[in-house]
């Protein structure tokens, strides 16, 4: 399970997001710096203001002292002024002097609101008019007076008598309007001179040391700091604007140079994915950018994709080729077993109980090995190709033909019922029959057996059984010499042992293991001329005390379990036991059917050792089927030759049911040829077939073989068989297989 952390770390963001985040970060940092800067400026402002306030307070104090000092100086100057002295000495013209001369003399500034001279008793030389000086000097000396919201400084300075310097001639009194005096006498740097006001309060006199509380003032807004604040704010604003414009330009530039081309590339790559391997859909250029690296990357990606597409196409072609190689049969060009299994699996997976009939046809070439051995593998391969071509053409359009192996083909007919499937099978047979085999060097007709199984519903269970059923059907088709097309039926399952009861299975297995149950029945074979029973053919039954089990139920089990050898040997023992038990009449031969598996045994004579002593009194005939003999001729020939040396007679059974090649017959180490029942029936069919059988019989006879005609059930057949040259006759006409062999019952064997 991928952890959340891993999930998070793997999460990707677009370049645009990163750029925006970066720009946002820059803006944020700028904001923080600006905020800090503004804060610092405010700090500076506060500190400066504090210092300014302090300096202003200091200035105020100093300015107050300046005023007081100036007042004192003026008073002293006036006191030393000769005219003051003159007036104090001769005060009779004081009023004129005060009002005219004092004014015109401009001995005092405008903020001095009045000057009076007082005698040494402190009495004003003339009544005070229009100023705040008293008519009588008090004892307190300098003082402050608040009156009408104005503050006045009243000073009194003694005037020394020039005649007697130690004596006070009188006093000079001055009254100053304090605030104007302060403003004019001082230059304020930190104090806002326009803010200096007299504090509100009642009109009264105050001592000089109480002056400060009587004044209200404010310190200046330090222009430098204000300017600094303005500069900083403006700078921040300007820089912010510049930064904003710059960031926008950067964003646009980066977008244009990087993000947009990357996005274009991304979209183009999506188009490339959609284009797949088609060159025609590849754009001429992925992106167009002013960045050389982007353009080169784009071109490299395009070239890479082109190569990738080409490689993909090559891979697809190779895959297709490999797929073809894996799913097509090299020799025939049709689908092979792998393709069949693939398609079959797909059909099964797609099955859902739909009512869709599916027919499974299995084709098998009859005696393909014999043909291969006769004409060579090249012709055999060519035959496979012909079969594939013929069958494929005979199928419906869209139907697939599969070569399952060797000479075995199959097809699946979807939505085909049994009738339609049969028609297809008929078509295949007809097409094959029309094909000129001599074009590929084969002189005789090539036949195929077709097994057909149909299911009406795409049920998975039924579908699963279809191949097996078709195989069973084909098996029956091969055995049935009359029908090339075999439709599956439940009986086939039973006959194949698939539905055979466990009783039959057990019995067959026990019999094969030698545990008993084998019961030989004997059918007479008579001399055509004499009608005498020459020998009996032993036919196996199993008697498990519940009844007889016939070869139809026995041999499928034996074949399925590859018990042919032990079963044959036990049959041989049973026959030997019957002979030894005098179950057979003396001097009468007995034929024992043996499979090619048994006849192939390297130590066959050892296994057949029980038979050899019986040769003294009985003719032992080993019957081997034409098919078995042909398919295993090379391996069986030596053993048969040894048996013949011992006097065992070899009979070729069911001649005509398989690959009836006369040339093959010449090579077979047999003494007797037994014509298949079909060949006997052909005597009764059209002239051409009869002619063929008769000619075959003649050749067999001329070759020196004894000829036994099987399946004689009617006198007509007897006569025909006799006329064609059969030396011996076998069939129900002369007797059925029974446990106790009995003499021939035909009354007219002559």
């Amino acid at each position, binding site marked *: 399970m991928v952890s959340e952390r891993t999930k998070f770390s793997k999460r990707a963001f677009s370049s645009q997001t990163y750029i925006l985040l970066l720009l946002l970060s820059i803006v944020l940092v700028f904001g923080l710096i600006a905020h800090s800067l503004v804060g610092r400026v405010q700090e500076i402002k506060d500190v400066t203001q504090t210092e300014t306030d302090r300096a202003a307070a200091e200035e105020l104090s100093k300015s107050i002292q300046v005023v007081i000092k100036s007042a004192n100086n003026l008073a002293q100057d006036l006191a030393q002024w*000769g*005219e003051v*002295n*003159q*007036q104090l*000495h*001769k005060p*009779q*013209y004081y009023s*004129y*002097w005060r009002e*005219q*001369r004092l004014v*015109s*003399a401009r001995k005092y500034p405008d903020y001095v609101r009045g000057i009076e001279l007082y005698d040494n008793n402190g009495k004003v030389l003339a009544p005070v008019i229009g100023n705040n000086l008293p008519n009588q000097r008090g004892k307190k000396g300098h003082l402050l007076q608040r009156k009408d919201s104005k503050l006045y400084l009243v000073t009194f300075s003694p005037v020394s008598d*020039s*005649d007697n310097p130690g004596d006070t001639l009188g006093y000079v009194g001055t009254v100053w309007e304090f605030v104007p005096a302060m403003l004019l006498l001082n230059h304020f740097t930190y104090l806002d001179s326009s803010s200096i006001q007299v504090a509100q309060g009642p009109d009264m006199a105050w001592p000089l040391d109480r002056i400060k509380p009587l004044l209200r003032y404010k310190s200046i807004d330090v222009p430098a700091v204000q300017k600094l604040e303005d500069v900083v704010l403006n700078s921040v604003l300007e820089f912010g604007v510049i930064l904003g414009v710059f960031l926008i330009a950067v964003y646009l530039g980066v977008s244009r140079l990087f993000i947009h081309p990357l996005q274009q590339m991304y979209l183009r790559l999506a188009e490339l994915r959609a284009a797949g391997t088609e060159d025609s859909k590849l754009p001429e250029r992925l992106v167009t950018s002013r960045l050389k690296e982007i353009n080169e990357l784009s071109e490299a990606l395009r070239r890479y994709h082109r190569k990738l597409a080409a490689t993909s196409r090559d891979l697809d072609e190779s895959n297709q080729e490999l797929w073809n190689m894996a799913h097509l049969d090299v020799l025939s060009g049709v689908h092979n077993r792998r393709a069949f299994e693939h398609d079959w699996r797909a059909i099964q997976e797609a099955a859902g109980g739909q009512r869709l009939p599916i027919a499974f046809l299995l084709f098998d070439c009859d005696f393909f090995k014999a043909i291969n051995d006769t004409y060579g593998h090249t012709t055999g391969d060519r035959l496979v190709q012909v079969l594939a071509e013929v069958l494929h053409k005979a199928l419906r359009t869209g139907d697939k033909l599969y070569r399952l192996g060797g000479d075995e083909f199959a097809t699946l007919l979807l939505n085909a019922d049994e009738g339609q499937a049969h028609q297809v099978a008929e078509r295949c047979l007809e097409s094959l029959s029309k094909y000129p085999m001599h074009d590929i060097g084969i002189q005789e007709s090539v036949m195929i057996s077709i097994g057909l199984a149909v299911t009406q519903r795409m049920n998975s269970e039924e579908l699963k059984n279809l191949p097996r059923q078709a195989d069973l059907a084909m098996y029956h088709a091969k055995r049935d010499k009359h029908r090339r097309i075999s439709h599956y039926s439940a009986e086939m399952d039973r006959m194949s042992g698939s539905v055979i009861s466990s009783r039959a299975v057990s019995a067959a297995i026990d019999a094969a293991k030698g545990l008993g149950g084998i019961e030989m029945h004997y059918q007479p074979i008579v001399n055509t001329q004499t009608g005498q029973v020459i020998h009996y053919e032993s036919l196996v039954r199993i008697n498990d005390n519940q009844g007889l089990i016939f070869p139809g139920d026995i041999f499928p089990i034996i074949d399925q379990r590859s018990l042919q050898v032990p079963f044959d040997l036990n049959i041989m023992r049973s026959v030997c036991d019957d002979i030894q038990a005098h179950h057979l009449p003396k001097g009468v031969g007995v034929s024992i059917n043996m499979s090619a598996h048994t006849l192939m045994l390297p130590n066959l004579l050892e296994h057949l050792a029980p038979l050899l002593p019986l040769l003294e009194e009985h003719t032992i005939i080993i019957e081997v089927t034409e098919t078995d003999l042909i398919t295993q001729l090379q391996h069986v020939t030596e053993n048969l030759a040894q048996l013949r040396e011992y006097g065992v007679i070899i009979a070729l059974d069911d001649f005509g049911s398989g690959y009836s090649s006369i040339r093959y017959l010449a090579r077979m180490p047999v003494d007797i040829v037994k014509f298949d029942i079909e060949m006997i029936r052909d005597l009764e069919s059209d002239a051409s077939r009869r002619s063929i059988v008769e000619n075959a019989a003649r050749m067999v006879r001329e070759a020196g073989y004894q000829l036994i005609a099987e399946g004689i059930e009617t006198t007509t057949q007897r006569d025909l068989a006799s006329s064609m040259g059969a030396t011996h006759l076998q069939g129900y006409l002369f007797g059925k297989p029974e446990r106790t062999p009995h003499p021939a019952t035909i009354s007219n064997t002559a």
Partner: protein
Amino acid sequence: MDRMDKLLFLSPFKFTRWQSPHSASFCLLIVFLFSTLQAFAQPLQLRVANSMLANADYHQGESDKPAVLVLHGFLSTHHFPTVQHIAGELRESGYSVLTPSLTLGLNNRTTSLPCDALHLHNMEQSVEEIDWWVEWLVAKGHTRIHLIGHSAGSLQLLIANMQKHNAAVQSLTLTSLIPLERLPSESPKGDTVEMALKRLKQGDSSIRKYDLSFCHGNFAAPPEVYLSYVSWTKQRIINGLKSSQTPINIIMGGNDKRFTGNNWMPLLLQAAPKLDILEGANHFYDGDAEFALLESILDKLETLDTTTNRGT
């Protein structure tokens, strides 16, 4: 020279410092100051007539040279440039020089008195002060005293000598002698003489503003003070010149505008045919006229002095 260097330099125990270039300059300065101190007058502050405290400068000259009293003009002080120039030249020439400032009724007057100041000091009081100064010179041992006046000072010296001649006074040199009546170039503005006379008769001592000399309608004074000055008319002055027993030299500026239009010059010439008219000189003998004035004064003094010595 920094402060430390100065201290070390001035220290008598740091002999090495005397050898520095700075010490030589200082010595020269001392010598120069010492020498020039000889030409500088000493300030005086004396209680003069009427117990008024007056200021003056006095320079003790050569013992064989007479003393000279130089008096300033109307409402001025002894610091007036013309007075200082004359006094300085005389000092240089070895004369003992006294340059007093009339109190004009103000104790310790050191500055010129404006026209609109309250003038409570009349002519007679000023003359009294002049007499006191002459007595003071005599008391200082000067037996030969020359009086030199400028402008109103010349008039006051004339009046003083007329009213009380001191035997020590050898001569009067009156420069820019003019009456104190209203300047002819100015129109009447203040109260008239007649008004003053009327007030005086009425006992009205109130301060009025009158025209007096260059005080144009703003000479503030009671009527009696005003009249004490203005009563010295041109004729009265001429009469005084004519009747003076003391040799009088009169030096006038040829370009003195103060008496243009009041017929004063012709009258003066009539009374003093030997008056010295310095061409191009104004009332105050500014510029090159200063040298001419000084030369004239010295010349006259020397002539007077020689004559006096021969006479003794």
